[in-house]
């Protein structure tokens, strides 16, 4: 076969592969949007579900989702950033560091259902925290930890060396340098990582289904149980009686995820402009 022709055919195939990937994304988004938009209204967002088939709104599930996500973010952010500071600024390559990295990689690839059962066994049952926002947030934070750690470490490493030299030259200690120059310079990309990990937490189902409980409830304290949007969507979809509410929930969930992704992208762009 003519090598030009072969080249054309192959390139067309590659175009097709990318085209299929992108069109699948749009198909999913457009499908959810078209079916969900009719359901969306202020009363759908701000009222409680009622009756045996969960008619009405989904307000408590939105609150539960945001509650657990923010809680998990608060738990994971300081730990993950300081851990990344250690890996990027202090650590000397060796067995210890390679153990930490292997653990982080393993944690990142733990199937979410395993994380859910782990949260159930440790937080809900052994520590007797019960089905609660706190149990779910703790389980989720183990899932988010490696993501935030990795992006933060990359962000810190991307800060040019000369910025550190400037700081040391002025007599700053290592921590002062990290705190006052390196972290601020890396902050937009760190925020990007946090937002991405948070987006992951918003969309997570299998982890929270066994740690947060499933009963609809408006959480007030971290020890309250609740039902997040993902679990609500799962139950509505599998029950199959009230599909319009399922589409509405799916659309709101999708919008939340899009907001998180665009937000992350915004911070990333800001950081690339600065550097």
């Amino acid at each position, binding site marked *: 076969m003519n090598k030009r022709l072969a080249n054309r055919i192959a390139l067309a195939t590659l175009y097709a592969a990318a085209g299929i990937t992108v069109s699948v994304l749009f198909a999913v988004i457009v499908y959810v949007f078209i079916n969900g938009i009719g359901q969306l209204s202020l009363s759908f967002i701000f009222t*409680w*579900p*009622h*009756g*045996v*088939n*969960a008619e009405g709104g989904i307000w*408590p599930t939105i609150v539960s989702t945001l509650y657990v996500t923010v809680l998990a973010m608060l738990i994971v952010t300081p730990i993950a950033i300081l851990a990344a500071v250690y890996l990027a600024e202090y650590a000397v390559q060796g067995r210890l560091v390679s153990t930490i990295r292997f653990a982080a990689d393993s944690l990142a690839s733990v199937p979410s259902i395993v994380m859910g059962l782990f949260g159930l066994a440790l937080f809900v049952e052994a520590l007797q925290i019960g089905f609660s926002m706190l149990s779910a947030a703790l389980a989720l934070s183990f899932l988010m930890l490696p993501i935030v750690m990795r992006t933060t470490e990359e962000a810190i490493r991307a800060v040019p060396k000369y910025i550190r030299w400037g700081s040391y030259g002025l007599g700053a200690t290592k921590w002062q340098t990290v705190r006052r120059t390196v972290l601020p310079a890396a902050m937009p990309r760190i925020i990007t990582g946090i937002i991405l990990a948070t987006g992951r937490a918003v969309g997570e189902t299998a982890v929270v289904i066994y740690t947060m409980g*499933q*009963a*609809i*409830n*408006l959480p007030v304290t971290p020890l309250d*149980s609740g039902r997040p949007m993902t679990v609500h969507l799962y*139950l*509505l979809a*599998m*029950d*199959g*009686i*009230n*599909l319009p509410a399922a589409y509405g929930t799916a659309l709101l969930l999708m919008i939340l995820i899009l907001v998180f992704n665009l937000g992350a992208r915004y911070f990333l762009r800001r950081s690339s402009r600065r550097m």
Partner: protein
Amino acid sequence: MLLLPVSGCSTSGISAEELIVTGSTTLLPIAEVSGEMFSQRNEDVKVLVSGLGSSAGIESVAKGSSDIGTSSRDLKDEEASLDLYDTPVAYDAIAVIVNPDNGVDELTSEEVRLIFNGTYENWAELGGDDMRIGLVNRDEASGTREAFYKIVMLETPFDRKAAVLPGTGQVRSVVAEAPGAIGYISLGFVNDEVKMIAVDGVLPSEETVVSGTYPIQRTLHFFTVGEPAGDAARFIEFVLSDEVQLGLVREAGFTPITEGTD
């Protein structure tokens, strides 16, 4: 029944009396939602509902740890001595459904059982078209499956190759689309997308259920110690009112108990 809000709308009553209702998970939707409605209107009473299973409900009301025990089965012989007062609150009738294009209209309960245990694999064996039977079962946590298992399967195993779906609506929409499919759902959830099978010659309907001629049904009970009194009596009266019977009970897929009494 997984779709219920835990009564999170707090009632403003400070020293509300508690009415404890324990028992059947099948009855959970009715008990919980009607309990919430009742509490909203009678702020002095807070109805606390939990679903632990029928046996637990009967035991707990007999021991006095709850005011009402709910049950999806009749009392067993050994429970008869507990001297409980029975108020039937609804019928749970289960319709066997097939695709509207399926030529089969009628089956005996024996045939239904042999379909669901995998003995029959093609509709042609039952006088229908040459088409593979697609079994749709419910999940093990389902009260409908439990009832079907007792009444139709006579406690013999289901075919394990059947699709297991955790929701009534899914069973209905799968049967509505797939020509060879057969499933079972509560009578109240049947719509015109699917066709009901006459079992032992009787089509399920509110009439045949109330008259007791349709075979796949059971009665749902509220048990109390002695005749209900006080708050328990008021709550039971509310559950038997047209508002709950014709509204909530039907929405939950059950058949109203009061239909045939007039």
